[in-house]
């Protein structure tokens, strides 16, 4: 046996790997789940040919005039049935023939319904013989990088980096504490820093697999763009993983039971899942809470990832998110070193 494989840091890190790969659920959540999620989202939000919108009218003539527009399919329903169809979402607009004209019943908070109403109005006017006063034509744009999948891939990557680091560190440490293994280890001559270092080392090695597999898949299957320098993307991933590892360490530093730890982890991660802009832009939240959202490490991560991948922003222009991640790393790590409970 070589000296390297006899060293305690090597053995501790190898042990981490063994324990990780022998836990099929963990392997699933970290490697397979994000890919499944990306596939699922890409199907749900695929860029379909412009939708044909379902509408209804109370008279056959009105139905005909609506059907004359290619953007609509119309059926004839009486007012009662129509109201029911509206309520269940089967149709978006109900056009009601009235003595003096046509009334449109629709939900104005639903963007699709608003669109359908506009098309329906145009169709009715056209059928009534009104001419378009300005000649317009369409040019369709489906550019790589502007699609939903391009938007969501950096979000999913950030979310995955967060969960794998926090779960990976937090659970393993609290389990070792609960099972008194931590106490047994500090009763041996094991250097304590090596125990923590073995987590970071194994995390960084897993990170390579995790990121390459996920982004490779996103590139090959969806053609997601990488506009910034790849080494900077790698650097952002490493920094992210270290910051969340430090946060995981902080969460795990006192908790005595797995239940307490998983409660804490959810408490920390849940706001970020919602607020940090994984699935939709974080700017949708009110301005008053924007400073809080900006300060969250996952928001910083996703901003940096989107900046790099989608806009090709160089690290020198990503000072704010990188600074926020560094701050989380340093603060969490130094607090956990102070309060870490070895037994």
């Amino acid at each position, binding site marked *: 046996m070589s000296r390297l494989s006899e*060293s305690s840091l090597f*053995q*501790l890190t190898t042990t981490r790997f063994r324990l990780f790969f022998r836990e099929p659920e963990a392997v699933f959540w970290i490697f397979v789940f994000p890919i499944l999620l990306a596939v699922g989202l890409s199907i749900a939000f695929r860029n379909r040919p412009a939708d044909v919108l379902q509408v209804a009218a109370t008279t056959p003539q009105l139905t005909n005039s609506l059907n004359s527009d290619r953007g609509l399919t119309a059926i004839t329903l009486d007012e009662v049935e129509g109201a029911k169809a509206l309520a269940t979402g089967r149709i978006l607009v109900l056009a009601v023939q009235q003595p003096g004209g046509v009334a449109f019943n629709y939900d104005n908070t639903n963007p699709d319904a608003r669109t359908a109403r506009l098309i329906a109005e145009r169709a009715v006017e056209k059928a009534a013989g009104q001419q378009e006063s300005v000649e317009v034509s369409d040019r369709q744009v489906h550019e790589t990088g502007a699609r939903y999948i391009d938007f969501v891939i950096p979000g999913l990557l950030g979310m995955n980096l967060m969960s794998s680091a926090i779960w990976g560190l937090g659970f393993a440490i609290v389990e070792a504490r609960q099972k008194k*293994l931590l106490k047994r280890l500090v*009763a041996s001559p*094991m250097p304590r820093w090596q125990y923590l270092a073995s987590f970071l080392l194994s995390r960084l090695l897993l990170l390579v697999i995790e990121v390459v597999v996920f982004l490779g898949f996103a590139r090959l299957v969806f053609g997601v763009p990488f506009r910034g320098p790849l080494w900077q993307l790698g650097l952002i991933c490493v920094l992210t993983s270290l910051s969340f590892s430090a946060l995981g360490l902080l969460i795990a530093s006192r908790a005595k039971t797995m239940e307490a730890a998983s409660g804490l982890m959810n408490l920390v991660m849940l706001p970020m899942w919602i607020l940090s802009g994984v699935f939709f832009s974080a700017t949708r939240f009110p301005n008053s809470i924007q400073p809080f959202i900006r300060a969250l490490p996952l928001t910083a991560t996703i901003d940096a990832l989107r900046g790099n991948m989608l806009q090709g922003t160089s690290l020198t222009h990503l000072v704010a998110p990188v600074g926020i991640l560094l701050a989380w790393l340093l603060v969490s790590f130094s607090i956990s070193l102070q309060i870490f409970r070895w037994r």
Partner: protein
Amino acid sequence: MPGIVTASATAALAIRGLRKSFGDVVAVDGLDLEVTRGECFGLLGPNGAGKTTTIEICEGLTEPDSGTVELLGLEWRARAKQLRQRIGIQLQETQFPEKLTVEEAIRLFRSFFNQGLTVERSIEMAQLEEKRKSRIGGLSGGQKQRLAMACALVGDPELLFLDEPTTGLDPQARRNLWDLVDQLKCAGRTIILTTHYMDEAERLCNRVAVMDHGRVIALGTPKELIASIGGEQIVEFAVDAGVAVDPSMLTRIPGVQSHRVDAGLHQLSVSELHTAVPPIFASLAAQGARLTEFRTHSATLEDVFVSLTGRKLRDE
């Protein structure tokens, strides 16, 4: 070389004036002990007597409130790194990761020590050859305990701490573990173990300290302690309810050293069974007591403990 002579002459473990409280609970209440090299020393006592706290202070895992502990002539404060390399520890209720194999766990622990046994040798000593490639999750209680022993031994320690090594094991597994401790004793290692099984202490230890409420209430070889209660034999009997037995009538009999009653069961320590039993029968008959139970056994450390704590209870 005088340096070496002094080193080997120092005690393996010296405890002076040790105290430790957790909140209101005094776990260790002024403890002095000395364990010489090559000795197998037992800390004996019921649950909550302060054994584990004492041993964990010795292992450098708990800070005492006051008092000093020296292991192999060194103190934890100054020489922790060195001490960790030289002692072996088996803790109560350590659960090793279930998904590791026996060999992997021992190899991990071996990597912490600068020198020690080979992984193969530790596996062999703990008699885990057949299980070396097995996952820890699939081991029996006894095998897990032997794995804990292998991890304690892998650094080839001069001083070995075993905290309740056989608690929760079936009789066969206990005996296997005793055999292992016997081997270690024969190899001249100093062993300090805690147990609440009196038979275990009697079987394994050269000397024992009986602990109760954080203090040592008796110290000596198992033989000395048994002799200290006055008789090597114990007579136990019970009589029909309603009849009062006068203890002074019994202790007057030659060879009867002491009398106590516990839950209706009378216990006499007796030095010479063959001469003492007939007068006991006669005395009970004279008092009008009809026997419902009668048995005798050789005195054990169990009887020592009962006798000691019994007396203490009466003192309070």
